């Protein structure tokens, strides 16, 4: 690299750094000044975010974003993202918040802060309304369908009692068919899948029996934004209390928020 080019590149980098530093001075104040809350939302992950018949984004995450914008008294600007680019959109300052069914893990915690949980996301055992299966031990003597190699399969295989019959199917559709055709009594899958099933098939009830692995969704916020973080947390907490979050859950997940939530 010749010296002139090196100078240009480093100058450009400095500009970028100082600009982003300025943008992050106080995100909450900036949002209020601009009058716009910019939020990254999914568009390919129903029921959290998808494109509706009117070509507008819709879903759990979009409703939460709208609720926060109302709370802040600003307009809402949605940016559709994929699961791969949702974090870069936030860290490069293109959006103020990521509400994109984001789970918590140590790698992500290094680069961004998380709000309190705003949506349930878990693997669990589901079954008909009448069956009383409160925990893993109660699986004794029952037949459960799982998709082979899935998180549910690996977890249940470790902890289920010996007399529980775990039937492993090749793909999600076969697992679901096994439940609806009555070949098994229970099914282990994700709450999002169960929500979609409940909407589609109303002949046979499908209720959450217990959680296998809990990995709720959090709102992603850039590091060093304590005011914005506190404000978002307060808004989510009040929405929980007022029942608004529960209404969003009922609308998109067809089930009330879990008790532990």
């Amino acid at each position, binding site marked *: 690299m010749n010296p002139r080019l090196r100078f240009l590149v480093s100058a450009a980098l400095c500009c970028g750094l100082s600009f982003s530093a300025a943008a992050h001075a106080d995100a909450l104040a900036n949002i209020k000044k601009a009058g716009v809350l910019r939020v990254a939302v999914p568009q390919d992950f129903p029921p959290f975010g998808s494109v509706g018949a009117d070509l507008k984004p819709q879903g759990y995450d979009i409703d939460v974003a709208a609720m926060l914008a109302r709370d802040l008294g600003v307009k809402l600007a949605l940016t559709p993202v994929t699961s791969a680019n949702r974090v870069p959109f936030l860290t490069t300052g293109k959006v103020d918040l990521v509400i994109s069914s984001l789970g918590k893990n140590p790698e992500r915690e290094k680069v961004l802060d998380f709000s309190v949980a705003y949506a349930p996301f878990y693997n669990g055992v589901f079954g008909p309304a009448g069956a009383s299966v409160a925990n893993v031990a109660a699986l004794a003597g029952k037949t459960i*369908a799982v998709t*082979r*190699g899935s998180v549910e*399969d*690996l977890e249940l295989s470790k902890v289920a009692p010996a007399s529980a019959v775990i*039937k*492993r*199917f*090749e793909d999600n559709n*076969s697992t679901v*068919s*096994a439940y609806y*055709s*009555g*070949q098994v009594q229970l099914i282990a899958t994700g709450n999002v899948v169960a929500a979609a099933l409940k909407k589609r098939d109303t002949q046979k009830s499908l209720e959450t029996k217990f959680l296998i692995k809990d990995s709720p969704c959090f709102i992603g916020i850039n590091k060093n934004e304590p005011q914005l973080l506190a404000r978002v947390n307060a808004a989510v907490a009040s929405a929980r209390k007022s029942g608004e979050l529960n209404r969003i859950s009922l609308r998109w997940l067809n089930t009330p928020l879990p008790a532990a939530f």
Partner: protein
Amino acid sequence: MAYQFDFSGIWEYRAELAAGVVHTLALTGVGTVFGLLVGVVGGAVRGWRVEPYNRLCGLYVELIRNTPFLVQLFFIFFGLPALGVHLNEWVAAALAMIINLGAYTTEIVRAGVQATPRGQMEAGLSLAMSRRQVFWHVVLPPALGRVWPALCSQIVIVMLGSSVCSQISAEELTFAASYIQSRNFRAFETYIVTAVLYLLLAIVLRHLLNRLGARLTNRDVAKP
């Protein structure tokens, strides 16, 4: 970069593989015995044109031979419960194999029966044997001997086809392989081992069937 083989991850699952082999053999055994029975009865009906069963058998053969085995299996396991018929995965798998093998062997046995020279049957009848006796003693043994290699091939095909039964959670050999593969993620090694096991099973099965054929038909089986 060369692939690093690691078969140690499979050895710890040897119990699952052994159980898979046993279950595959059991499914094949049940499927073969009852499938051949269906085939002999169907082949006789078709070969001697016993109406109206002849047409019924023709319908059965066309229906089964022109639909995929997997669809037949799903129909029995996932479809029949809608009519209140709940069969567990083993019964469903065995039934599907019997029905499938029965259709193919019906056609194979029919060919053998129809190839019987007319004079042999007439000779039997002229010795005051009943039609049933003629079929049982004069027609069937040489007919089976004639088509035995084709029957053996069909039985091996059905044995290999039983791998599909893993789709309805029947824990046979392919199920064991997929199970292991979903645990240790060594897909290459797992399926190499499984393929070798199937190969050995097929060779042994063919050998046994050839010997059985020589005994059953009381004559030298046509060499394939």
